């Protein structure tokens, strides 16, 4: 039961954009439930992931943290399988489980020996519709969530800085609100809020069930139909799509805390989403990888190796349904003014696009994409994660399976064009974490 912040999404944005031939099979039940199966009989183990295509993005103003709160409460039992029956059952068969919430999705997963498939499908179906919650459940879990917020944010200056930067960058939509919720709003969430949220959103129309591992599509279809077909569908989530205004001022955010022993410079840019143009987004991602993707990037070569100005630094790109974002950080070698770093990097990006981005480097990054896609198939949870995230942010199964075709078509000019546009992007916020 956890929150997925930037890190999680970023971790697998590297994997999710590549040529992956999962041979995934898909069908949709009459009530709207989407079923996807990735057959992989290597070991007698199945990974089940239930993805709901909403996260903190559907919370009303004043109710931040509600989607994540709901995620915690999904473990509290139903009429037929009360209290911790589901978790108890899973552990008795040697299974494991968890769940996570992000801006655009909420997901639950279990990994377990395949002979128990039917029961696990039944248990997951059951809690979509039959959760029983007491007021006491809600009150105690609220305490747990406040401790979670204190652990993740209030006790971590770096996380506080991130939270603050996002509120500045996304003043008008949910990407600016913390997934876990503001402290004062979590405190005010009520039993009724939770029940309403559950009834309104947890239904087959908003759900994608992914089964990966030792399972056949035919059998999966039969079992899923058996346990889900009686669940009535209600409305699909309605997303009130909001856009953010262009930022007209320079926005520098600074957090000074006596516990901070190492200065960290950060920047987040608002960018296009993969839904706007996948090809352009992939081109930008490739360019950014050449520019600042890791220890063989231009940025690393210039500022870590040559100038010894930083000890580390790189970028990450978030996969989101609405606005995309690009996240940058750098670890200065010596204490330095925030503005000095910003100026250096701004100049560097412009210069690097003209002089540093080469055909040779592009080929290397494309190769890496491709090899990563093969590694993405070694295991049973990873395919379900990649497919689930891509679908819930609005991509299609074909988009994932044919990723490599798009990748192949991207040339140096396209990459440069995206980077040039990026270098003119003024919708960013800069952060400084210091002592």
């Amino acid at each position, binding site marked *: 039961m956890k929150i997925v912040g930037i890190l999680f999404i970023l971790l697998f944005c590297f994997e999710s954009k590549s*040529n992956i*031939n999962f041979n995934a099979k898909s069908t949709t039940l009459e009530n709207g439930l989407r079923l996807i199966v990735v057959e*992989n*009989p*290597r*070991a*007698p*183990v199945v990974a089940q992931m239930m993805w709901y295509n909403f996260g903190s993005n559907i919370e009303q103003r004043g109710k931040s943290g509600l989607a994540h709160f709901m995620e915690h409460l999904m473990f509290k039992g139903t009429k037929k399988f009360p209290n*911790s029956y589901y*978790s*108890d059952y899973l*552990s*008795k*068969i*040697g*299974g*494991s*489980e968890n769940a996570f919430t992000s801006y655009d999705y909420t997901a639950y997963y279990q990994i*377990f020996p395949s002979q128990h498939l039917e029961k696990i499908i039944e248990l997951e179906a059951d809690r979509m519709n039959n959760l029983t919650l007491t007021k006491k459940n809600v*009150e*105690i879990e609220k*305490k*747990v*969530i406040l*401790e*979670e917020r*204190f*652990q993740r944010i*209030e*006790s*971590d200056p*770096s996380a506080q800085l991130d939270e603050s930067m996002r509120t500045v960058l996304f003043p008008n939509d949910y990407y600016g609100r913390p997934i876990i919720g503001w402290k004062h709003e979590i405190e005010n969430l009520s039993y009724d809020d939770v029940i309403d949220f559950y009834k309104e959103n947890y239904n087959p129309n908003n759900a994608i069930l992914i089964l990966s*591992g030792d399972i056949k599509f035919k059998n999966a279809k039969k079992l899923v139909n058996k346990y889900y077909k009686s669940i009535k569908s209600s409305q699909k989530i309605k997303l009130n799509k909001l856009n953010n205004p262009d930022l007209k001022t320079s926005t520098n955010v600074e957090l000074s805390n*006596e*516990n901070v*022993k*190492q200065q960290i410079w950060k920047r987040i840019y608002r960018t296009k989403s993969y839904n706007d143009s996948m090809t352009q987004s992939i081109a930008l991602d490739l360019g950014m990888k050449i520019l600042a993707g890791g*220890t*063989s990037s231009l940025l690393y*070569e210039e500022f*870590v*190796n040559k100038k*010894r100005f930083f*000890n*580390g630094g790189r970028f990450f790109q978030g996969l989101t349904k609405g606005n995309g974002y690009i996240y940058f950080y750098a670890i200065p*070698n010596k204490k330095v003014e925030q503005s000095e770093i910003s100026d250096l990097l701004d100049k560097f990006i412009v210069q690097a696009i003209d002089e540093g981005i080469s055909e040779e480097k592009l080929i*290397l990054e*494309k*190769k*890496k994409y*491709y*090899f*990563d896609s*093969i*590694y993405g*198939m*070694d*295991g*049973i949870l990873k395919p379900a994660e990649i497919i689930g995230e891509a679908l819930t942010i609005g991509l299609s199964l074909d988009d994932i399976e044919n990723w*490599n075709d798009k990748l192949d078509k991207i040339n140096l000019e396209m990459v440069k064009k995206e980077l040039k546009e990026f270098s003119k992007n003024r919708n960013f916020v800069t952060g400084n974490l210091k002592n």
Partner: protein
Amino acid sequence: MRFIFLFFLLIFKNLDAFEYKNLKTNSGIEFWFVEDKSIPIVSVSFSFRGGSSIDIKDKNGISNLMTSLLDEGTRNLTSKQFKNEMKMNGMKLSFSTQKDKIDGVFQIISAQAKDGFDLFYEALNHPSFNEVDINRVKRQVISSIKIDESDLSTLASNKFNQHFFKDHVFSNNIKGSEESIKNITRTDLVNFHKRSFVKNNLVIGVAGNINVNKIKKYIELVFGELKDNQQNYSIKQFKALSVGQKMFEMKTPQSSVLFGHPGLERNNENFFALRIANYILGGGGFQSRLYKNIREKKGLVYSIYSYLLSYENDGVIVGGFQTRNKSVFQTIENVKNEWKKLNKRGITKSELDNAKAYFNGSFTRNFTSTLSIARLLQVVQYYELGADYFIKREKIINSLNLEKVNGIISEYFSNEKLFFMIVGEPEKK
């Protein structure tokens, strides 16, 4: 750029079907291997005894610094060239220094095996240890030590090790300190590299799409040049673990608390009984008593856990939680009570049955990727659990009855032996 995958599926339907080969290279290096053609990847998991436990006095962190330099270039390739070659071949190589060993993972796309193993050979046997790279990685390690010091839970964990293990070598920080890092010279690194990577301290597990002859040849290539070394890198027993409580003040709204207790070495005959007891106490995720009683019933913490750290000659139980400063001592009391309750009343029949079922059922998860298979093969050798472990394991678990486990619990668990490290600003009781 598209492969067509031929699915010669290797299927592990049950433990009896799990067969590995015990192979030997020309020069006598033994390793365990599973040929798995379901995916065009080869994964190698390897381990050298030693790690930070053999760090040099006043040069703590040398093992970690040395392993951090192994992808920074070879006798033929600069750091940049080496990293590009890795990318070009879809190769992954990582080393991690731990308290008792250096763990390594090498992965390669099968079609690139030749180039990949060549690079692996160069990295392990002929790292450049170029002065420029050494200085850069030193700066990076120092930055990372400072980030650790800024982070509540990492700081707490380092403070815990320092005080709990007291005079034992495990009390040292794996990364060392700013001062100790600065003391390390290139010559130190070259010598330490020779001392760490020796044949008699090495264990290897391999899984993936490659045939027996080829993998024997490649393993010989990579590890064949290493020397033997008669020095014993076994970890000394923990003669005097701390008990009681220690405080480190830090201005923060939550405190991070880590706790420790004596445990058992991995190949002790009572290890599985202790593992089951710990599963019930704090190891079993949503199932554990600590989780149910302190999180679910009282809402005092978001996360609370305990786990076994079992080494070659000894072991400990370590646990932890974070809670608001006002509830630190209340939560510590709760942990002590769970310990007391366990010691006095033991576990119930149904708890035991559930735990046994968990350990029997969860094992097949190790077979879901080439890396997890390779790692399993390596770990079983590292702890000398026996060539028949995969068959024996279920018997060991099933032989545990309530009387036996509770006997071991009352012998080993005592709240008097608990040690708590508190980092934060806890409010007095």
